[in-house]
């Protein structure tokens, strides 16, 4: 599997994503600068977590317009897998590669903790090694992860099996509509999620729930 992690100014989970991919899949990702115009020829592009451009104006808004995103969009349309984690998810919605928007947490505060995550859809390159209904422990760490979309968009996402993950009932950390934690695009090659799979790959850190996502990708994309 060939992969690339995009580095925006003030991305701060870029190294974490790099390390998790390397350790779980044994393949080393390219680190790609936001100012470049082309992503190398890869099977997977990761938009990492962090505070790209300080999260000023709106989280992910400026990253969505950065130079590299033109090629990310092109490759996504060609079917290359794109994984947006946290700030990366925000960036994907701002770039309209995923529907909806991520608003300020309902509690109005940044929240860092573990949540229960329920797998809602295992039919994708990202989730095939999970099973539907499986319950996972994932860390979240964000101030704006409150997923919003109109009811018909939400109905469509649900109807088309594009809700990949939901927060466990009663464990929604941000007020997201219908407990949505992660969604797929129509072609199912773009996944955005607020929780951090790359922080859940090492038993020493408390959870290994995220490993199966990178293993799924390795299996699907190799």
């Amino acid at each position, binding site marked *: 599997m060939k992969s690339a992690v995009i580095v925006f*100014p*003030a991305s*701060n*989970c870029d*190294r*974490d994503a790099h*390390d*998790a991919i390397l350790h779980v899949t044994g393949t080393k990702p390219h680190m790609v600068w936001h*100012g470049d115009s082309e992503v190398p020829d890869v099977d997977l592009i990761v938009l990492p*977590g*962090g*505070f790209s*451009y*300080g*999260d*000023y104006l709106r989280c992910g808004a400026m990253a969505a317009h950065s130079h590299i995103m033109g090629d990310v969009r092109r490759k996504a349309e060609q079917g290359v897998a794109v994984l947006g984690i946290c700030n990366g998810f925000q960036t994907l919605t701002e770039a309209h590669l995923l529907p909806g928007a991520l608003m*300020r947490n309902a509690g*109005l*505060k*940044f*929240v*860092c*903790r573990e949540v229960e995550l329920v797998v809602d859809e295992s039919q994708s390159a990202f989730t095939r090694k999970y099973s539907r209904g499986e319950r996972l422990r994932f*860390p979240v*760490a964000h*101030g704006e992860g409150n997923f919003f979309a109109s009811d018909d968009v939400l109905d469509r996402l649900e109807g088309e099996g594009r809700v990949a993950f939901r927060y466990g009932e009663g464990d929604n950390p941000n007020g997201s509509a219908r407990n949505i934690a992660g969604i797929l695009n129509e072609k199912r090659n773009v996944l955005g999620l607020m929780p*951090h799979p*790359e*922080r859940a*790959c*090492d038993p*020493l*850190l408390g959870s290994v729930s995220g490993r199966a996502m990178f293993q799924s990708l390795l299996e699907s994309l190799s």
Partner: protein
Amino acid sequence: MTAITPETIRAHGLSAEEFVRIRQLLGRDPNLVELGIFSVMWSEHCSYKSTRAHLRRLPVTGPQVIQGPGENAGVVDIGDGDAVVFKMESHNHPSFIEPYQGAATGVGGIMRDVFTMGARPVAMMNALRFGAPDHPKTRHLVAGVVAGIGGYGNCMGVPTVGGEVNFHPSNNGNILVNAMCVGLARRDRIFKSAAEGAGNPVVYVGSKTGRDGIHGATMASAEFNADSEEKRPTVQVGDPFTEKLLLEACLELMATDAIIAIQDMGAAGLTSSSAEMAGKGGAGIDLDLDRVPQRESGMSAYEMLLSESQERMLIVLKPGREAGAEVIFRKWELDFAVIGMTTDSGRMVVRHKGELVADIPVHALADEAPVYRRPFTARPPASGEIVPAGTADIESVLLQMLGCPDLCSRRWIWQQYDYSVMTDTVQRPGGDAAVLRVNGANKAIAITTDVTPRYCRADPFEGAKQAVAEAWRNLTAVGARPLAVTDNLNFGNPERPETMGEIIRAIDGIAEACRALSFPVVSGNCSLYNETNGEPILPTPAIGGVGLIDDLAQMATIAFKRTGDVLILIGATHGHLGQSLYLREIEHREEGAAPPVDLMVEKRNGDFVRELIRSGRTDTVHDISDGGLLIAVAEMAMAGGMGAELTPGKDATIPILFGEDQARYVVAVAASKAEAVLADATSAGIPALVLGRAGGGALVVQDVLSIPVERLRAAHESWFPAFMSDETRTLLPARDIV
């Protein structure tokens, strides 16, 4: 130019004698710009004039020490060519005026101190002291400070992994916000601030200069008046985004060999960074202010030299390396300007709009800064045997204490901090010390901050010893070998003899404890004049401790893990209730002697516990501090979601269960190993006794109480969220310009 009147001199916080000295050093009258430069360089904040003579008594060396006090941060060897770089610093006064920005820029400032040394910051801690919970400003300050720390640290992508929080009326008008940053570097890639050599370009990088916080350094050194809230100097606003770029750009430049010296612009900005760099390198420095990147138009030389705009650095490069360096900073979209040159004149020479605006011998600013041995009175330590007043019900005492402001869970706070970014946080907030894996290795550093101000008020010497001992103990309790400390000495007005007495005795206490525990001081910070309208804060010498875990397989946490583990109490219990939380929370008395610290016992007991962890005989340890034995056991139960049954017999008394005797730990060991552990303790002359066993869903004290762990948790977790639920005055921290 404005004439220098006695009024002007006083407004600059300089005494008449200091002004005379300035005239002697210059051989003439200073102009206003020069007076401004002297005023910040000779302020308490920059010159440590009241404490410098006393700080020399601190032990600062050891085989592990690579860099002691005197640089931007201390550096300690952790083997394999790695070094840990750390320092703690206060941002007390700015945080009281504007809690969000004050705390945020405090975090930014201490991070710059660490990455200036060539280290990547890997962890943050914060030691916070607020006023009484029912004081009308407290909620607003808590909300703003916590949001500010999180806002800055989270954006930087550096995990905030612990700290401490106290509430006390003596902080009603003067909160304490102490932030500690820990970084990792290669020991042969440490950068320093001595600008050696002449003819080297002086480079300004980072943000543009505005009129922010002019006179912040002198503000931090002047006692607060009620009306300083009205005066409100231009508040510094933090820009963590720019700081993150600055961090990455500096580390990228540091990977080359272009740098001679580097120094962040902190308090007193351009003035202190340039004067200190030149002073340390024995060089002179010429600056041309017209080349300084400016955010506002029409700034005077005075304003530019004293501005405290954040996210700026000064670098002395090897000649000819400017272009290469500029490429790096431009790539990160930061300002870069060559603003001067080092010289062999020994003078700091500043030009603005073609005019010479300052010409001062560098040594006059640094080496000639006044040193005072201020008069002091040593208050006799508080004393007296404390006997509990009545026969309080132990169950309700336990629940009440678990839920009191100084002991309850700080989850409400640390859940707003990203403590797991960087994927190396092995022990997050909630334990004795935070544990951070050294990226890519199997070793880890442990970090803690500690001080118990009420002990220090009762007895500054014993209280300061206790702060060091508790930090050492917290590191020991996770299995770490304590390496070194940073300190943050927060006190009132040193011109008051009683306060000066507290400072001196506290420094002596730190020195004695650090020496006895081979735990040298490698960096630190003094924050004086912490008082409002003549009311000083409790003496608060905060200690930040760092230790090393050689092998992550040998580590302990506080959580009970296995049913049937035998709980052993290490250390002697006399039932010392003086200055205890029990006394304050339940009997509303702050009385008696602070608990005495026997450093030899401390070392012996701690070394024994650490060896138990290293030899794999226990992985469950908690030291006993605030609140005493029963609180410690309850915390272990809550962390593990598992109860315990204690069999104290006739010892189930208030003094035994809630006394705060020092040098104690609770360890849980497998039943099969308990005998051997007890025997080893006995042969080492260490008091050890079996408390009971872990297991079940309740904390049981035989014949006294039985409380489900869930109920302990409810008591422990509820106070903070309930307290902060009325955030009426706190909703709109400045960053939230949504």
